[in-house]
């Protein structure tokens, strides 16, 4: 059990490439933090720096109030689960889990006890403990990899995209298992993923990384409701948020997408940004199909995707070019070429500065 504190962590590779541009975060004891971002954003590098597999160029890393910058991975009181599991192929499952403990110098009896305990938690049978990793299915290997982490009884779990090698169904199941496990063990965990659904469902807090910068740090709902930047807005949520160039009127009361009716801005408007060109973002699920209404915007349908539970309607506003996706509940009988009256709820508008790409208001 430990707090993990990162202060001004930076990484510059010997060839001059800057991978991480300064990360400050305090991860509370027992917290589940998810690092999320597209590939190449530096999330794995950051995790590997915490693990001690990459050196820290600048900044201070403490685990449990102990500076660990110069400690070996094995001395940092961490355990890591790798994307490809990294199980030792020539050792049985039992030996895989026991190997680290053997090096720690624990007695045979204690090793046996810890492995048994972990196997029970992960529902691995005695028969499975004697098998070699290659005789196990993907999900079972994943469990063994987690077992190897659990037996170490570390202060911090580090997960490096542990589910990306599994098929979709198993991924959902293992996601739940990891969440339950983390909650019951109460061990501080840091989890790297590029999958925003995984991030949203697992994390107490999410850190969105983009090109080595922290875009936003917050709870999943904060990130969903108030994305701090265009990047976060586009990254969190599926299908992705709709964006359109728009202009706020001089009073800051309404916003106009080029060539369309003005839409009222919620929350008393944005007087300080009056007359400004902005980027307007609306989530597909916050667009409603309405019967002819005064504030409805006509949408020309190009494509319809039926998902059963939802219907995704793709198209664009009137004559404008910017693409638009609307998510409607249930099965709808809509065809390409139709023009639908769409209402945008003023409470769910996200307004971004086109230059800094940060959120306004």
């Amino acid at each position: 059990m430990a707090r993990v504190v990162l202060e001004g962590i930076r990484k510059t590779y010997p060839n001059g490439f800057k991978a991480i541009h300064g990360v400050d975060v305090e991860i509370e004891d027992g917290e589940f933090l998810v690092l999320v971002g597209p590939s190449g954003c530096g999330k794995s590098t950051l995790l590997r720096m915490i693990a001690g597999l990459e050196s820290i160029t600048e900044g201070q890393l403490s685990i449990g109030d102990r500076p660990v910058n110069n400690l070996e991975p094995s001395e940092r009181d961490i355990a890591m689960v790798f994307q490809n599991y990294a199980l030792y192929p020539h050792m049985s499952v039992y030996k895989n889990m026991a190997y680290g403990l053997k090096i720690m110098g624990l007695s045979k009896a204690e090793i046996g006890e810890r492995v048994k305990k972990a196997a029970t938690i992960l529902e691995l049978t005695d028969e499975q403990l004697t098998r070699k990793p290659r005789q196990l299915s993907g999900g079972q290997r994943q469990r063994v990899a987690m077992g190897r982490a659990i037996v170490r009884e570390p202060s911090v779990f580090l997960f490096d995209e542990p589910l990306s090698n599994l098929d979709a169904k198993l991924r959902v199941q293992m996601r739940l298992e990891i969440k339950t496990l983390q909650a019951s063990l109460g061990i501080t965990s840091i989890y790297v993923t590029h999958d925003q659904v995984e991030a949203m469902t697992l994390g107490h807090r999410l850190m969105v990384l983009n090109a080595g910068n922290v875009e936003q740090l917050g709870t999943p709902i904060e990130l969903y409701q108030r994305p701090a930047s265009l990047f976060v807005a586009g990254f969190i949520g599926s299908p992705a948020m709709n964006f359109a160039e728009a202009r706020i009127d001089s009073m800051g009361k309404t916003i106009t997408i080029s060539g369309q009716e003005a839409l009222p801005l919620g929350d008393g408007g944005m007087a300080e940004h009056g007359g400004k060109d902005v980027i307007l973002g609306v989530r597909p699920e916050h667009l409603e199909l309405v019967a002819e209404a005064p504030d409805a915007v006509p949408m020309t349908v190009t494509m319809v995707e039926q998902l059963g539970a939802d219907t995704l309607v793709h198209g664009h506003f009137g004559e404008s070019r910017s693409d638009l996706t609307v998510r409607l509940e249930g099965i709808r009988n809509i065809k390409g070429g139709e023009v639908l009256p769409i209402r945008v709820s003023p409470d769910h508008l996200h307004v971004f500065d086109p230059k800094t790409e940060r959120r306004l208001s």
Partner: protein
Amino acid sequence: MVENRPLLAIFSHIMLILGVVVIAFPIWIMFVAASHPEIRMTQVPLPMLPGGHFFENLDISLNRGMSGMDGNGVGYMMLNSLIMAMMIAVGKIAISLLSAFAIVYFRFPFRMFFFWMIFITLMLPVEVRILPTYEVVANLGMLDSYWGLSIPLIASATATFMFRQVFLTIPDEMLEAARIDGAGPMRFFWDILIPMSRTNIAALFVILFIYGWNQYLWPLLITSEPGMYTVVMGIKQMLEAAEQVPQWNVIMMTALLAMLPPICVVIFMQSLFVKGLTETEK
């Protein structure tokens, strides 16, 4: 390939059988010759069917030797060859494993330089450097010893290169997992790397053992004491035994004996050998 062309099938079989005959016929001759009394081997035509003196010849070859060999058989030569081949094979594998480990997993100055240095020794087999190597071995007082027989042949660029390729296929995460488990470099080497490359080690052992067993020129050069002779050079010397009619039955028996250990190694390690050269799954 599934094809139904009888002519092609007949042709391929003829070629295969011819191939087998070309390889097998001399061995048959050897076997036949080794089973006749000495006198029969000097008469024309040479026999094509085995005679009844196989075990007698075996006894002569192993224990008594030919006339003119001071009553020593080739038994001790077999032992010398075995020791030399084992030392060469084990030594080569040990050294190559360690040097490949250093080159793949450690970052030290001039790493690539050293790698290429090792690699270009491929161009310098024993035959090329035989005089200076002899000089070195002689000065070290290793003539007529097992060390002298094996050490100059131990350094191996081929095996180093092969193990380097094997280690490169082992995912980095394996090393990282071991580091998190607290394994130091040598522990990782023993516990993870060597077990993971054991099929490759076996395959290489087969090749290197045969290489060591078949050494002829080097043992010939550095051994002057009959007690250190190896069986391959022993055969040659039997042919030249001074002022004698070659005892073909004994010579052929010795040749048969000399073939035996390499054959055993290949047969018993065959499955590992094939696996080691073809297996890619890690």
